[in-house]
């Protein structure tokens, strides 16, 4: 089987055992300015950056990380659909770090437009700004952008490869390519004889791939259908390789203990630890220590036995102080006033309500703890890492060990959960530094769960103050202020060394960009100047603003004496039809408005995020021994659902991730350290308290939206609103377990 190490240019020297008989195709015409990172060996063809063909098979290179969201399956289907590859013939590999794989759609999200107001002009402008992604080497999996970004590029790659294969066969047969057709990974001649693509790998090398039109949606065989996931058998048999499973000859096992206050190390004493069983070395990493042993568990035992004096944190030491500092940001000039319709300072007749909301810091807590494997050979470095940003990982690892980017190879493995956490490079750099201290020896470095929980890049705690006016059953005014440390600024500084100019759109997403017609509507973003390590947590700003904004809308509906679903529907109808569509659909699914017993409560939540409107209805029940979520109905509209089974799984997954956080997720700080360590004090939903789900996918949206994240934001307010319906107590603070007797 092909491996990316053998076919990527950077690893070509290492992968001397190049695959016999293969090709690398030229790049799809419109994008030919970025060099193809794939290099063909003898008899191989890399038809473009996405396809490698040789006598052994057809390999599709996925430019995005498979972290559970099914992207390998969907991206492969885009190529296979146009190329006519038989589904069972497909092998998918992660792409190497390369400019050709930049994410154009991700940067488009940063523009301060209301996404849903997607005129063709704005759509094109977003696309052009997205080109900057290439300059920034933004090969990033995030922002629910993978399929949107690949939708045209990878289909074009498949179409042009198909035509190139026909040309190659036509030359062999000495007939016109127009007389040939393709199906099931083969070119079919007029007399019915078949030429399997793999048999054409050698011949197609010299063909210049033509640029051809894409097939109409009505002709699709794979897209729009639920395909068997390409990673499913491996993941059901324990054979799917994650970074933590990397096996190399002579490998040693390592772990780290870094400062839980996220600053430096004053001193350490390893005199006892280094005498412990299996320990081979204890390495000074500057802001922590690494332990190398003959077994991971022995390394972790020794790391815990090192006596370390840590520096204090650069941020306030307790949750209380951090929240005070966040609250103080309300008094600062706003960083953004992206939404400012009408005049919120004008006197508006009606009933005024106000509310303040608080949500906590959150950890990603992926199932696979952070880990990476590295081997340093003096003039080269190879890293195996489950990551969402291979170019950044390559560059940071190179910098850490004093090599150039060209001397570093990054193998991106399957990710045992990402949710944003694996967009970071910290764990890959740790493995690099330990490997550098142990040259020519493969080092597999694995964090303990405790290290993982205490060294996350957290979702920030956030506060909101809302004022609203309702009259005649309708919203007349919404004035919201959102305060938090900026994820965008904190992460940009860490990842690329600068803060992007202009208003921080991510800080107010989920509130400022909601598709509601409200005559006087303003959202201001206030940035707290703190240095807590923050990162992108599934749905990012929407994860707190979705809760703030939609909960306040629910409070306004209640104050207006209106039905909460109809209240939202009226505001959405005037502004964005697909949003109104999902609200109406979820009402129909749940038979909204029907009589329910006294011990049942129902709530609706709605958030438009990553181009996809999602409405959720949650039903809760007071069982007499705690409150349980019985059922969740979800309606979404991402325009084109490329794989309905995967979309359904992502919507359900997004909601469960949101419920878990809303019910019990909370990271607190004391003495500058996160106070949570493991799943016993940072848990999530489990089999016994997960509700039944029903998902409906609508396809009316003009432009393609995301699937991995949009299910998360509305789940939290929907649950809070259902609890209000059940108990009469309004959920203004998360996690809900502080206020409600939930079954955990």
């Amino acid at each position, binding site marked *: 089987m092909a491996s990316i190490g053998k076919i990527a240019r950077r690893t070509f020297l290492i992968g001397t055992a190049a695959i016999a008989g293969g090709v690398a195709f030229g790049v799809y015409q419109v994008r030919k300015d970025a060099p193809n990172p794939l290099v063909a060996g003898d008899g191989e063809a890399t038809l473009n950056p996405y396809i490698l063909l040789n006598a052994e098979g057809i390999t599709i290179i996925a430019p995005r990380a498979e*972290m*559970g969201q*099914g992207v390998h399956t969907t991206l492969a289907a885009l190529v296979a659909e146009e190329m006519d590859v038989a589904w069972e013939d497909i092998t998918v590999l992660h792409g190497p770090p390369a400019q050709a794989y930049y994410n154009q759609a991700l940067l488009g999200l940063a523009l301060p437009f209301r996404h849903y107001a997607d005129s063709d002009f704005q759509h094109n402008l977003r696309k052009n700004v997205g080109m900057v992604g290439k300059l920034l080497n933004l090969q990033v999996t995030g922002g629910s952008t993978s399929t949107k970004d690949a939708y045209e590029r990878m289909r074009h790659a498949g179409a042009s490869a198909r035509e190139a294969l026909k040309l190659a066969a036509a030359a062999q047969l000495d007939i016109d390519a127009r007389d040939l057709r393709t199906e099931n990974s083969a070119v079919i001649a007029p007399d019915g004889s078949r030429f399997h693509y793999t048999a054409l790998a050698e011949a197609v090398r010299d063909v210049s791939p033509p640029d051809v039109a894409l097939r109409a949606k009505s002709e699709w065989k794979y897209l729009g259908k*639920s395909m*068997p*996931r390409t*990673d*499913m*058998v*491996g*993941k*059901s*048999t*324990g*054979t*799917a*390789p*994650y970074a*933590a*499973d990397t*096996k190399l000859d002579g490998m040693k*096992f390592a772990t780290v203990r870094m400062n839980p206050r996220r600053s430096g190390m004053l001193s350490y004493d390893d005199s006892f630890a280094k005498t412990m*069983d*299996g320990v081979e070395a204890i390495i000074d990493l500057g802001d922590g220590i690494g332990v190398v042993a*003959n*077994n*991971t*568990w*022995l390394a*972790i035992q020794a790391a815990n036995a090192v006596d370390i004096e840590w520096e204090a944190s650069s941020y306030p030491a307790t949750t209380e102080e951090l929240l005070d500092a966040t609250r103080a940001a309300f008094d600062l000039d706003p960083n953004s006033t992206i939404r400012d319709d009408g005049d919120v300072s004008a006197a508006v007749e009606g009933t005024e309500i106000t509310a303040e909301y608080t949500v906590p810091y959150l950890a990603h*807590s*992926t*199932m*696979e*703890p952070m880990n990476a494997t590295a081997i340093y050979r003096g003039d080269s470095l190879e890293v195996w890492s489950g990551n969402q940003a291979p170019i950044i990982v390559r560059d940071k690892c190179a910098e850490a060990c004093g090599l150039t980017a060209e001397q570093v190879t990054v193998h991106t493995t*399957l*990710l*045992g*959960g*990402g949710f944003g956490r694996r967009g970071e490079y910290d764990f890959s750099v740790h493995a690099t530094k330990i490997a550098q201290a142990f040259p020519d020896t493969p080092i597999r470095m*694995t964090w*303990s*769960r405790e290290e993982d929980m205490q060294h996350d890049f957290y979702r920030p705690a956030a506060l909101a103050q809302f004022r609203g006016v309702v009259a005649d059953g309708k919203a007349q005014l919404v004035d919201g202020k959102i305060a938090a440390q900026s994820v965008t600024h904190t992460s940009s500084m860490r990842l690329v060394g600068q803060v992007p100019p202009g208003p921080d759109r991510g800080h107010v997403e989920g509130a400022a960009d909601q598709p509601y017609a409200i005559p006087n509507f303003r959202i201001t973003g206030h940035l707290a100047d703190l240095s807590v390590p923050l990162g992108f947590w599934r749905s990012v700003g929407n994860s707190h603003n979705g809760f703030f904004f939609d909960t306040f809308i629910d409070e306004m509906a209640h104050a207006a004496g209106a039905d909460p679903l109809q209240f939202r529907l009226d505001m959405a109808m005037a502004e964005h039809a697909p949003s109104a569509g999902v609200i109406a659909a979820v009402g129909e699914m749940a038979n909204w408005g029907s009589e329910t017993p006294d011990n049942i409560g129902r709530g609706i939540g709605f958030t438009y995020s990553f181009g996809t409107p999602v409405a959720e209805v949650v039903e809760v029940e007071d069982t007499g021994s705690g409150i349980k979520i019985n059922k969740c109905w979800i309606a979404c509209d991402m325009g084109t659902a490329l794989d309905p*089974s995967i979309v359904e*799984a992502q919507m*359900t*997954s997004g*909601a*469960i*991730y949101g419920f878990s956080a809303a019910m019990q997720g909370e990271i607190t700080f004391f003495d500058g350290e996160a106070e949570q360590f*493991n*799943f016993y004090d940072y*848990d*999530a*939903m*489990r*089999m*016994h308290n*997960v509700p*039944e789900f029903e998902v409906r996918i609508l396809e009316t949206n003009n432009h393609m939206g995301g699937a991995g994240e949009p299910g998360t934001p509305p789940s939290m307010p929907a649950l809070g609103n259902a609890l209000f319906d059940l108990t009469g107590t309004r959920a203004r603070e998360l996690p809900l377990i502080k206020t409600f007797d939930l079954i955990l």
Partner: protein
Amino acid sequence: MPTTLTINGTAQSVDLPDDVPLLWVLRDEVGLTGTKFGCGVAACGACTVHIDGEAVRSCQVALADVWGEVTTIEGLGTPNNMATIQQTWVDHQVAQCGYCQSGQIMNAAALLAQTPNPTDADIDDAMQGNLCRCGTYPRIRAAIKDAAQRIQEA
């Protein structure tokens, strides 16, 4: 002194201290990485294996305390010869990131061995020790029920 274990029907000699957990013997010494490390404190179930058919958290069983034959996910079935429970996992397209699924499947297999026709409450009780951050629970439940039916019909 080396310890001898029987893993997936094969005797394996292991030279590690007595207190090293079975999980880390399997992963680092024997090279069976299908069994996953998630928490190290029996709070997530990712490391579930069978000892004499019983589902155990291998992160909590010291090498010296392994009392019987060990079966891991690799011993349950292979990609070309999957156990029924693995086949229903594929048919129901259960896995997302997939990291917890070895443990989920091993736990479900032990449940079905003991309770061939589990109710929802049986599934809740048996599976609540297995955490899945992707939230694949609804499909896990469906795959277990389907496997129960197929095993009984076979």
